[in-house]
């Protein structure tokens, strides 16, 4: 086993909100052509038929207001451009026309093609260039937040493609239940009681002891008491003197940058923790914002048999959970990862998160509970093989957060 995996004791997942890969990291292709970002000549037609190009004009706030639609029918339109035929292909040509529906303003709708430069996003860009950036991490469903976040906790959304999710009689065990029932430790750190938690209503009902605040995360990092598996939720609302840090439009993207840096600094600030932790930073879904890579179909072995009916998808078609959602930014951080790693030719999704934690901490789990994980999760790619170095790096970046 590589020394990085031998040293590994903690996996930390930070899930941000609603930004696509190209929007946040697409410009990095100009720095490293291995990164599957933007060439600069990508376009989408607007409602007048004119091509709207990608442009480095994204702003931190007030640009994507109203919030771009990212519910199932809108994402279906963004991916397929409105084509409902049986042989349709994912062309990624419907983003501008979809956003037009929100304000019916052609000029404004073209802003869905805007992307950030690395100078605007010093934290995410630096981490992507210094550690491992995934060319192919996709949201699990071409739909909104809650069903996508469910995949990060359970490896499934229980057949749901929307926001009304109450998992009555669920069979699959969450990654937290698996960890705790096998004598391991796991926690969900939400930002504070005001922001609280998203999606995990059932966990909140049954196991509130699983939860901690972000202040506790910082204290646990400092004292060396971080659980083996941690999932961090950003601040979802402006409250008190604090800005929301989730980067959900129209929240301030710089506030999210600071939050990512503070998570990194907290781990990096404890030498033993830094040496024994892998930090995954990933976004739940693309938020209706342009990305150029068509989401792939899943292999047949990964299809669980769930079917969302047309009344739930909001299209004229059922959804068999056979295609992933739009691509999102994902970066894996560890001092055991070679600088400048670009993960190419592999497909990841949010089911990769519980799959990785289970494979590493509970390798015997499927033998113990054969039906407790979905086929989808069992087939998902895992990512700890990226910790390949024989010697820990000493050139990792530091973030100096302006006070």
């Amino acid at each position: 086993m590589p020394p990085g995996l031998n040293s590994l004791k903690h996996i930390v997942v930070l899930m941000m909100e609603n930004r696509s890969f190209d929007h946040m990291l697409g410009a990095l292709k100009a720095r490293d052509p291995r990164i599957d970002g933007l060439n600069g000549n990508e376009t989408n037609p607007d409602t007048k038929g004119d091509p709207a190009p990608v442009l480095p004009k994204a702003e931190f706030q007030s640009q994507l207001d109203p919030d771009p639609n990212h519910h199932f029918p809108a994402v279906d339109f963004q991916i397929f451009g409105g084509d409902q035929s049986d042989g349709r292909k994912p062309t990624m040509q419907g983003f501008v026309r979809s956003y037009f529906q929100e304000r019916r303003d052609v000029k404004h709708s073209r802003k869905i093609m805007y992307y950030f430069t690395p100078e605007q996003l010093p934290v995410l860009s630096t981490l992507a260039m210094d550690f491992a950036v995934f060319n192919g991490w996709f949201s699990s469903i071409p739909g909104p937040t809650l069903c996508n976040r469910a995949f990060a906790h359970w490896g499934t959304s229980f057949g749901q493609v929307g926001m009304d999710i109450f998992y009555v009689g669920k069979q699959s065990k969450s990654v937290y239940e698996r960890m705790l029932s096998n004598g391991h430790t796991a926690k969900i750190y939400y930002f504070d009681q005001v922001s609280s938690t998203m999606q995990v209503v059932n966990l909140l009902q049954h196991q509130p002891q699983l939860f901690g605040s972000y202040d506790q995360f910082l204290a646990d990092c400092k004292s060396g008491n971080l659980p083996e598996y941690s999932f961090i939720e950003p601040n979802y609302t402006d409250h008190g003197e604090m800005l929301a840090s989730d980067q959900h439009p129209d929240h301030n993207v710089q506030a999210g940058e600071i939050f990512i840096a503070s998570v990194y600094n907290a781990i990096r600030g404890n030498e033993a923790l830094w040496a024994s932790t892998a930090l995954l930073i990933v976004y739940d879904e693309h938020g209706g914002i342009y990305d150029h890579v068509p989401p792939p179909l899943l292999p047949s072995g990964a299809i669980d048999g769930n079917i969302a009916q047309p009344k739930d998808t909001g299209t004229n078609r059922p959804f068999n959970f056979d295609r992933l959602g739009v691509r999102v930014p994902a970066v894996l951080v560890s001092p055991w990862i070679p600088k400048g790693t670009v993960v190419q030719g592999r497909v990841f999704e949010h089911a990769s998160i519980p799959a990785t934690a289970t494979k590493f901490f509970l390798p015997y789990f499927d033998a113990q509970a054969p039906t407790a994980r979905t086929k989808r999760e069992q087939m998902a790619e895992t990512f700890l093989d990226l910790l390949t170095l024989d010697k820990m790096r000493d050139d990792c970046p530091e973030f100096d957060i302006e006070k």
Partner: protein
Amino acid sequence: MNVIRVPKPAAAPNRERPLSDLLKKQVEHFRHVEKKQLPFDKRTGIVAEAIRTEGEAAEYIRMVTEKLHRYAAKPADATGIAPAEKKVVRVPKPTTSPKHDRPISDLIRKQVEHFHHVEKKMLAPDQQAGKTVENIQTEGEAAEYIREVTAKLHAREQTRLRPAEAGMA
């Protein structure tokens, strides 16, 4: 002496003017130099092929010039990655203030609905927040409701755990 008066142009700078062939070539040359002289992690990240106006070209050329002055003297290794150095990245503070009256997104609307569901299911009627959640319209209102319910759920859990903890002691 014959003094010739040179009038000031009436026009204002036009940063939106499309690139001339000359400027297109200048951008191309800067792109070439940037790729050749700067390691990956010191490049601008601007997709030069996407530059369409004089304003965009001017900003790109300024950035490359500044980076060439700062970094071009440092040789890149064979992979194009700069030699190891301690890298401290400054993270700027946002200039905006919290906006408590921002209308809630669909996401926060659903979060509120889910908390209302949990509140009704888990808390006795006299322990519930007693809010009509359909009336919650802003982030500030949603935040306050979610804070209240989360605190009550935690208090309930502490009460529930106390006998077990006492038993363990």
